[in-house]
């Protein structure tokens, strides 16, 4: 293992106790933040020194009480500085222009469905859909084929399974836009072992029937 890979690996191992299926147990960073991960590889300490705390209202702007203040680039990492200039921490993690760094909020998912395609025509496909996360009814729906991504086109056929998600997103210019996304599902075919198990199950189930004698 190279030096930097080892450092990355050791950092990963320290963060995740072996019995936990949680992420980010010691700091509230999403693992999916690539910016953060890059920062970690480069050895920036993400310690409590720059974590603001909910303080008593009367002491909202008290100085940082951590014992492990660490220099992280442009800022000294004190709470005061963080509170007065929230962008300071952003700059210190990933020095980019503020415009680039301004996050576009992730889409908000309002609802999603589990669907199966029943029919495909030249312009549309029909499907049975059942909403996830609720005990909703099975519904029939018709979608435009133009909603299918090119990468999924080969999977559009009767029996094809898909997820349908609706929600909204905020664009970089702050506009709200509704979204509807269809993603065809990719689940592996049955293996030889599955087939053998099914055959054994079927033989056992056959014994439950009376002999019809015909």
């Amino acid at each position, binding site marked *: 293992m190279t030096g930097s*890979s080892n450092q*990355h*690996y050791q950092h*990963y*191992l320290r963060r*995740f106790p*072996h*019995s*936990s*299926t*949680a*992420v980010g147990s010691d*700091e*509230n*960073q*999403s*693992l*999916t*933040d*690539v910016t953060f991960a890059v920062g970690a590889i480069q050895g920036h300490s*993400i310690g409590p020194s720059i*974590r*603001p*705390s*909910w*303080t*008593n*209202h*009367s002491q909202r702007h*008290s100085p940082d009480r951590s014992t492990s203040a660490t220099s992280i680039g442009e800022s000294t990492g004190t709470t005061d500085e*963080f*509170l007065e200039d929230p962008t300071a*921490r952003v700059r210190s993690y990933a020095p980019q222009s503020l415009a680039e760094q301004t*996050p576009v*909020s*992730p*889409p*908000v*998912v*309002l609802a*999603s469905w589990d669907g199966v395609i029943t029919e495909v025509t030249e312009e549309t496909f029909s499907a049975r859909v059942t909403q*996830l*996360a*609720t005990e909703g009814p099975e519904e029939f729906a018709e979608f435009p084929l133009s909603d299918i*991504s*090119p*990468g*999924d086109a080969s999977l559009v056929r009767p029996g094809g399974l898909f*997820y349908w*998600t609706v*929600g909204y997103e*905020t664009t970089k210019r702050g506009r709200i836009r509704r979204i509807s*996304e269809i*993603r065809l*599902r*990719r*689940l*592996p075919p049955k*293996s030889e*072992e599955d087939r053998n198990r099914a055959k054994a199950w079927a033989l056992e189930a056959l014994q439950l029937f009376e002999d019809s004698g015909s």
Partner: protein
Amino acid sequence: MTSPPAPDIHGASIVLLGSFNPAIFHPAWFHKQGLVSDEEHDAAAIQVMLPDFARFNIDWLEITVTLDRFEVASGEPENFNLLRDIVIGTFRILQHTPIKAIGVNRNEHFKLPEDRWHEIGDALVPKDVWSTVLDAPGLRALTVEGVRTDNYAGYIRANVEPSVRVHPGIYIGVNDHFQLDEDSKDSGVLDSSQAVSVLESEWDGILERAPRIIDTVLKVKAT
């Protein structure tokens, strides 16, 4: 019902604990098994590839594997259901992998008006108890654990902290943890079927739970 609150940062992941071989996991493997599309595979990027540690992205998906941990994650909430399929697909193929626990995680950061940020902190951890023994007490991190009410061992944990990503802001993480090796102690058989079964049959509950917990925290009022 009002629309769910929009997080400023979102992350979701599925984590499995068991015995894995990081060496076999590679974007090409997922592509060859038909679990990702050509386009997704073309957008893959490897960060680390070692016999006992692998980390790579396949477009929207981040995969990390060590000898005892397998994790898929995404920062795109619209792909949460597809995380489920990646795990189901992978461990239907690798059906003999012993998996002793599975956790589904949702981690979100919400920027809040400063008053509201303080109000939530005060509501979750009233300061009057702590003020008698600490000067200017403030909430650093709160973990609350609930028992499972389904047929599985495990727990549901909610973590609440001031966000270090958005300020003033709150971080809320929910860990929906299923412990799978309790039953297998009697039967002696531990493979991937239990983990796959959790994702297949408990998905509605998993999808519904975390947003409800997050919404409850965001709406809490100080007494």
